[in-house]
């Protein structure tokens, strides 16, 4: 799958990119905030997005995921240190691919992506 990564921490973004490549996926773009994330998505048309909830420049991963879903039909897999029940309920309408709590393990990421590809 062609995957967009939106994560404000460069090291974590690098790690996720590497993990995704190891798992046989293609990282089509990386972004640190919601604006560049949306631009990248419009340019590269990914199959899905891996999104952190709190992003750089004080932007919101949840809103970005909503926009991606509504404009481009791109579904998201959330990776965050703060996933609340309220957030899960909020996002239910845009069919998220999953919610992974940091620190993520390779196995959990793999399982979530298998679910997405199926």
């Amino acid at each position: 799958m062609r995957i967009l990564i939106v994560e404000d921490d460069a090291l974590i973004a690098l790690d996720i990119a590497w993990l995704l490549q190891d798992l046989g996926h293609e990282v089509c773009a990386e972004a640190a905030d919601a604006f560049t994330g949306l631009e990248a998505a419009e340019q590269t048309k990914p199959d899905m997005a891996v999104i952190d909830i709190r992003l750089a420049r004080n932007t919101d991963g949840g809103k970005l995921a909503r926009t991606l879903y509504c404009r481009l039909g791109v579904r998201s897999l959330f990776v965050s240190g703060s996933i609340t029940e309220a957030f899960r309920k909020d996002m239910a309408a845009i069919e998220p691919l999953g919610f992974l709590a940091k620190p993520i393990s390779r196995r959990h990421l793999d399982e979530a992506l298998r679910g997405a590809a199926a």
Partner: protein
Amino acid sequence: MDEGEVEGLRGRDRQAARERAFRLLAATVAALFGAFAILGGLLVWYDNATGMVLHTREVREGISDVHQALSEAEAAHRLYLLTRTPVALGQLNDADQRARRRVTEVEFLTRDNPSQQRGAQALSDLTRQRLALLERGVGLAHEGRGEDALALVRSGQGTAVMRAVREQIAVLDGVEAHLEAERRARAATLRLVGALALLVFAVALGWLFIKALRDINVDREVEAETAERLRGLLQQRTLLLAEVNHRVKNSLQQIASVVRMQSRTTDDPVVASALDKTLGRIVAVGRVHEQIYGNAGKVGDFDAGSYAAGLARELVDSMGREDITLETDVEPLVLDMAQAAPLALIMNELITNALKYGCPPDRPCRLRISLRTVGDHHRLSISDEGDGVPAGFSMASKTSLGMRVVDALSRQLGGSLSVENNAVGATFLVEFPRSVA
């Protein structure tokens, strides 16, 4: 302004409001008692004053009655002298008795006033003198000495006494009339004072009532403000906790990411394996954190049972082997935060160890994990079906880092680690006391 200061200030405000309300209540009660005492006193005084007025009136009526009775007695006396009719005698007798009775009454009523008492005595003497003269006239007439009786009347003695009686009555009545006017004025003043006191009392009571209502309102406002502050502080604290929680997990993720990338870039399989183990430990600690703080509703409890089952399943699955059977026998075991992380790391080490050494790749294996409470101890046991520990294996040797870590953490929990060989494989056992908290 920090939390303590804010709470202190609110506390002082409330305390002050309560003290004010209490003082107001005490003042109201005292004022009520005072007002009732004053009104009671006024009432007694007024009653006394009106009594005095009545008393004066009685004296005046008595005096006037004495005069009237004497006049009637004179009239009856004259009638008798002229007609000798017994009816006149009866009338004289009645008037005589009435005059004596009334003058005695006046004497009695004026006993509280020495000068009037003297006047009343004089009046009494004069009355008796006049009546004695009348009796003498009747007596003479009765004896047939009509001329003598008329001569007695003509002598003017009776008229003189009667004049003296009138003068005495005028003096007495003048003094009593003056007293009556004085006492009426006093009663009227008291009536006015009473009415004014009642008015003041009503106004004061109304003022106290309004003030009490206002104070209650102030108290309520302070309370509402305090509640608002507390809600704010709680919200702040919740936000802070969520923020710290987020940071901790992000930091763990950063470390995990770096370690994972290091592992990936090393050419040495031994180093890669060591780094992967470290990664496993970091993730294990992250899971504990997730379980403790992830649930916003209830922070602080850690269910070791479900954690153990979840971790074991995860680690077994990560082996990618279909021939390892996992058996878990755990009960819900709520530990406090201080016990959670050490136990999680112990479980991570022992399960990883069992999968590495206790499940030889050449045959199917069974891994048994049990976490239960026995008496006042928790007991974690992990059994594998490997080749068992070597004959010379001892905790004291502490050759592997994993075993040293488990041994150290077991002691941190106040417990101990032991290992024994079964018919097939080995069992690692960690026992530690239940939390005293």
